[in-house]
């Protein structure tokens, strides 16, 4: 399974999001010294689970759901985590 598919599967399972968009930005970083550690991804996720949580709490929940980033093939992850209505 591609890293992108792994991210999507884990986040869907954890948050049942209304919306999830995963962009693979790896090509922009090809050749960058640490690009060999894995890909660069941007995730937009909209889920009721984020309502009432601070940005840091939202990111922590996402990191928990994804598990070890390096094992999942992720080198860099940019996150936008919104509750419905914030989007």
């Amino acid at each position, binding site marked *: 399974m591609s890293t992108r598919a792994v991210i999507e599967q884990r986040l869907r399972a954890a948050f049942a999001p209304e919306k999830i968009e995963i962009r693979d930005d790896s090509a922009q*970083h090809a050749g960058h*010294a640490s690009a060999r550690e894995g890909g660069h991804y941007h995730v937009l996720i909209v889920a009721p689970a984020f309502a009432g949580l601070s940005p*840091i709490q939202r990111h*922590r929940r996402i*990191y928990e759901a994804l598990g070890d980033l390096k094992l999942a093939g992720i080198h860099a992850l*940019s996150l936008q985590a919104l509750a419905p209505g914030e989007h």
Partner: protein
Amino acid sequence: MSIQEQIRDQLNGSSIVLYIKGTPQMPQCGFSAKAVQLLSACGAHFASYNILENPDLRQGLKEFSNWPTFPQLYIRGELVGGCDIMVELNQKGELKKLVDQAQS
């Protein structure tokens, strides 16, 4: 001194601490560069540590904060977040408020 003690010392030493890849003058990653730029634009005087030079610090921080990525911004010893959170706070005008409070 253990790495966890070193981290506490670093956080006690400055009210604003940024852990990045590279240095503020020569960041080695776009997210670290962005974090430096945002803090500087807020008028922050901050301590900065290059985690690429110190693998123990890099690993120690991940455990200290239970946060897997860099940059990591700490204000008054508390993890504020990484680049995305800094961008978000900056858009709401809250990053400058945090910086001003930390420096008052």
